[in-house]
């Protein structure tokens, strides 16, 4: 075998071939031609192609092919999971810049579901597909509507309003999906249209109202008899709601559980609203149903189809004294995301959700300050293993203190029902979050960054206050950028904190200067991520960083996240030029024992052993005294402290 042919096996020449293809010219842009066929007899081909390690046989890259590889990946992110197709204008895209391609895709129809998919992911949910041909009601996966903030923020984006503001709003319009296309066989006669069946059903239900009124007013009717009729069985309130095909609409969360049913329902289950009057509240229920029946025509599926999230309609209950907005968390969300408020967790699951979702805070117990006194009767004690999480968890939970089972608002009730069915007096429950005298606030409720420096915290009482915190807290924007990176690149991909901070700064700057294009910041940061090395690198290793802030240099001897943090948080005091406490963290050196570590000398100038150095770093990172905790006089995000702590702890054990 000639030498040249052997060499040829290690090199693949990129030669274009003519397509001559019956396939769409757009798609079948020719792949590079391989080496001449006479060298590719089956026997030799097998040896040269399939058994060589990739690294030894990587052909010269074809930039256009690489671009299409990138386009394929980006397309699945921005075009609702679609791959490049023969029907796409690929050759036109070939000639465009990456940013221009992304701009085009963000302006297309498919971007709606892409944005919705990301938004759901941001909120901690993920579905395999937004639209399902076999979905029960309107083609959308039910989880899409479990978080109304998802639909609201996407609607705002496409209406030219601020997507991010909507994303961090916790009150949304009350959405209502189309009514069901068919009632049950018992209710809809063969050949009868669903509208006619529903109209007939309304008439039947209106007939029940006479019974409800009569029973409510009749003092000889016992409470149990009243409840048995109004609630249960074939002529009760539940049948009225579900029997007209409202079971597919998300409104039943607010309507049946929060607004319409609950006064009567709760009272019949032993949880009486303050000032409940059987006659008056039954009449109110009847009026509400009567009013609702008059509002349903626009929601009939014959005239209301959801081809887009923008088609989703709302209902406003304020004409009958009900809500015009709903809380962003629905009953459905509580159930499928397991975010109940049980008698043992006191809204802490919801609080943990808020912290993790909006603040990227996993409640890492590092560097917790133990206060000199407890709040609220010492119910959590001073045990660091408890307090490490609860100092942040409980105040956040306080924003939901009025919301019990199904996120129902119990502010007008004297007893709150938990998700597990247990009950508590509202006064006792509310007491859990009362602030100690002298704090200047009524409730110990808020986003707590420090237990000894209240000026670093943001306090509030209501959901509106929580919204304001979400809109202003820098951690929320930083977390949003991180989640966008994780969604686009992969949640298992390491990323330099410096790079994320850079992206966040750009995001905040663009938000401040967006003018008439409120979502420019979102687009810009997403484009940066989709054109990043992390995204493009098909051979990426998950525990390595590929993108850095401008001017940031990574020390390859250190974990990439640590290198970034040391530079930004530590080196200003602990550098080789001026090593505070004898410790220089700007670079690792070869130590006397042959290991790699940081230069660290004690007061007498003697080198400190490596293990001791890292042990002290661990201690100072987690010190409970803010005057000694590192970085000195600097509050850093929990994630950063956790990163440094875990790294140092690992090194200290080597």
């Amino acid at each position, binding site marked *: *075998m000639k030498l040249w042919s052997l060499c040829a096996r290690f090199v693949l020449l990129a030669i274009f071939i003519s397509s001559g293809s019956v396939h769409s010219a757009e798609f079948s842009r020719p792949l590079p031609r391989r080496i001449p066929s006479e060298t590719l007899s089956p*026997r*030799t081909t*097998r*040896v040269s192609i*399939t*058994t*060589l*390690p*990739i*690294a030894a046989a990587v052909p010269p890259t074809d930039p256009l092919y690489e671009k299409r590889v990138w386009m394929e990946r980006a397309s699945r992110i921005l075009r609702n999971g679609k791959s490049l197709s023969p029907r796409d204008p690929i050759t036109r895209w070939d000639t465009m810049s990456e940013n221009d391609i992304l701009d085009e895709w963000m302006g297309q129809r498919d971007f709606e579901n892409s944005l919705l998919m990301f938004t759901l992911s941001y909120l901690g949910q993920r579905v395999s597909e937004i639209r399902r041909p076999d979905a029960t009601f309107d083609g959308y996966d039910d989880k899409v509507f479990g978080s109304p903030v998802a639909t609201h923020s996407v609607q705002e984006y496409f209406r030219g309003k601020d997507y991010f503001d909507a994303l961090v709003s916790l009150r949304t319009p009350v959405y209502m999906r189309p009514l069901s296309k068919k009632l049950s066989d018992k209710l809809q006669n063969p050949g009868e249209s669903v509208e006619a069946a529903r109209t007939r059903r309304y008439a039947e239900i209106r007939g029940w109202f006479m019974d409800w009124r009569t029973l409510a007013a009749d003092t000889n009717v016992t409470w149990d008899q009243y409840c048995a009729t109004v609630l249960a069985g074939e002529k009760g309130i539940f049948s009225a709601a579900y029997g007209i095909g409202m079971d597919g609409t998300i409104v039943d969360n607010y309507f049946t559980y929060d607004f319409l049913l609950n006064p009567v329902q709760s009272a019949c289950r032993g949880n009486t609203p303050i000032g409940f009057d059987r006659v008056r509240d039954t009449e109110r229920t009847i009026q509400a149903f009567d009013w609702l029946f008059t509002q349903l025509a626009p929601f009939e599926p014959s005239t209301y189809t959801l081809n887009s999230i923008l088609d989703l309609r709302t209902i406003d209950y304020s004409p009958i004294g009900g809500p015009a907005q709903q809380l962003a968390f629905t009953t459905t969300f509580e159930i499928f995301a397991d975010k109940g408020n*049980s*008698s*043992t*967790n006191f809204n802490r699951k919801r609080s943990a959700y808020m912290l993790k979702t909006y603040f990227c805070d996993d409640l890492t117990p590092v560097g917790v300050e133990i206060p000199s006194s407890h709040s609220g009767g010492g119910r959590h004690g001073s045990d660091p*293993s*408890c307090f490490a999480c609860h100092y942040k968890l409980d105040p956040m939970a306080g924003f939901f203190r009025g919301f019990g089972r199904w996120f129902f608002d119990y502010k007008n009730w004297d007893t709150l029902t*938990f998700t*597990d*069915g*247990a009950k508590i007096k509202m006064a006792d429950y509310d007491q859990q979050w009362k602030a100690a005298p002298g704090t200047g606030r009524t409730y110990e409720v808020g986003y707590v960054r420090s237990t000894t420096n209240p000026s670093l915290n943001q306090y509030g009482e209501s959901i509106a206050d929580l919204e304001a915190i979400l809109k202003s807290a820098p951690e929320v924007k930083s977390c949003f950028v991180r989640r966008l990176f994780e969604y686009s690149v*992969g949640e*298992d991909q390491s990323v330099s904190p410096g790079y994320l901070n850079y992206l966040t700064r750009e995001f905040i700057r663009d938000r401040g200067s967006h003018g008439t294009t409120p979502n420019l910041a979102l687009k810009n940061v997403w484009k940066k991520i989709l054109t990043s090395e992390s995204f493009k690198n*098909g*051979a*990426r*290793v*998950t525990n390595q960083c590929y993108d850095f802030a401008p001017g940031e240099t990574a020390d390859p001897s250190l974990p990439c996240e640590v290198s970034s943090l040391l530079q930004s948080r530590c080196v200003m005091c602990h550098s080789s030029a001026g090593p505070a406490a004898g410790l220089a963290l700007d670079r690792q050196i070869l130590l006397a024992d042959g290991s790699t570590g940081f230069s660290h000398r004690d007061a007498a100038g003697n080198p400190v052993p490596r293990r001791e150095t890292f042990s002290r770093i661990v201690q100072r990172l987690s010190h409970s005294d803010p005057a000694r905790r590192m970085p000195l006089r600097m509050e850093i995000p929990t994630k950063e402290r956790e990163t440094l702590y875990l790294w140092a702890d690992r090194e200290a054990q080597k």
Partner: protein
Amino acid sequence: MQRREFLTTLSALPLLPALLSSNTALGASTTPPPEPHFFLMLFFPNGLDLTHVWDSRPLAFKAAGLRAENFGVEPVPYGNTLVTSAFDPLRTYANRFSIVRGVWMSPDFDGHQQNVNLMLSGNPFGGSFFVPHLNGNTTPLDSITNRGIPYPLNNLSKVAPLSRTTLNTLQERVSRSQALVAGNPLFEALKNRYQAVGLGSSRMALGSQLLYGGLTGQTELHSQLGQLGPDPVTTGGENFAAYVGRLMNLMKLHSTRTAYLSLTAGGQTIDTHDSESTKQTPKTVQKCLDSVVTAFKVLSETPFDSTRSFLDVTTVLVGTEFGRTNRQVGRPIDDTGTDHNPYNNSFLIGGKGIRGGLTIGASDFETVNETLSPARLKIDPQKLNLMGRPFDFASQTVRTDLPPTVNLSDYITSASIVNTLCSLFNVDPSLWRKNGKETVNAPVLTSILA
């Protein structure tokens, strides 16, 4: 040697260390073990109150307003404990299992997720699932479960969620398909591709290594599923007895050695925080035990070979993530719910390697006027809970002293339960459990080992 063969051989050399390793996807061994030993875990999530089966209390407790009780009949002695009528169906198999009482779960958390995580992985925040460790990486699948495992466990890649319906459908499809076996051109070409792409530690490389393991493992699995045959029980739905039978046959065919089944109480509420559910407790525990009895019946009546039943070659563990309190504060004893109690759990362990008929460990507060330890009173001054008594692991007896402080090493914990199983299945001690921050493995319950 031909040049092609030489170079082909050389190309495989870098993979040899991985191929020889038994702990990588590339090196999955499928050699049958010398002695059959299977594991079946029946888990009832949400905190089943097993003190209404065994570890019960006299009716005097209810009379004193200390404990909700809805059987209305005095429990009777069994070993060193009291049992209710709910235990009766299990008596048939009493010589095939033992009961461990007084087991402490997590003293730091009383949440469902944390205690299930603790049970399954040894860490309240999740970790490595112990059931695959018992399998020893000798079969195509580490374990089979009846539904997905929704906990943050990091080694679920070979734990296959196969309900009865899914298993039957799969078996039927497999029986009508051609196997992909070594020597087949597609098999060989895929193997080459996965090996080639699998070099390095990039995401794709590591994923390709897993594909390699899947490719080489599926041949055997295909054969095993084909041999399993159709379900002899033709009634549809989730027939538990039929399902257990199918699982055991699959284990006999060496598809896996372990199964973890998460079970319910047939529509009854296990997490009895509200009084209505608590009143239903007799029915709830009965429904749960129906599943346990069914499993024992299937195992004991189905022959494994000419001399042994499946129960002779299978170790069984039955449990839940924690116990429950006796009552709730401020509620009348006839109208109270119960809350989580991680200080007194209990487990049933039986089958191969386990001595039958024993009850070891104990919980305190066995009489109304019992003097309780300062340690437990500090945790539970209102005596809402039963708590596990300290245990002398050397003599395997319950201690009678009343410790002033809590030290987990004084008690039987879930770590000891799991380590007992690990000892039976020869799991590497580096994978055993430790209590809290201790540096030694939690002790094995040697008294229940056969």
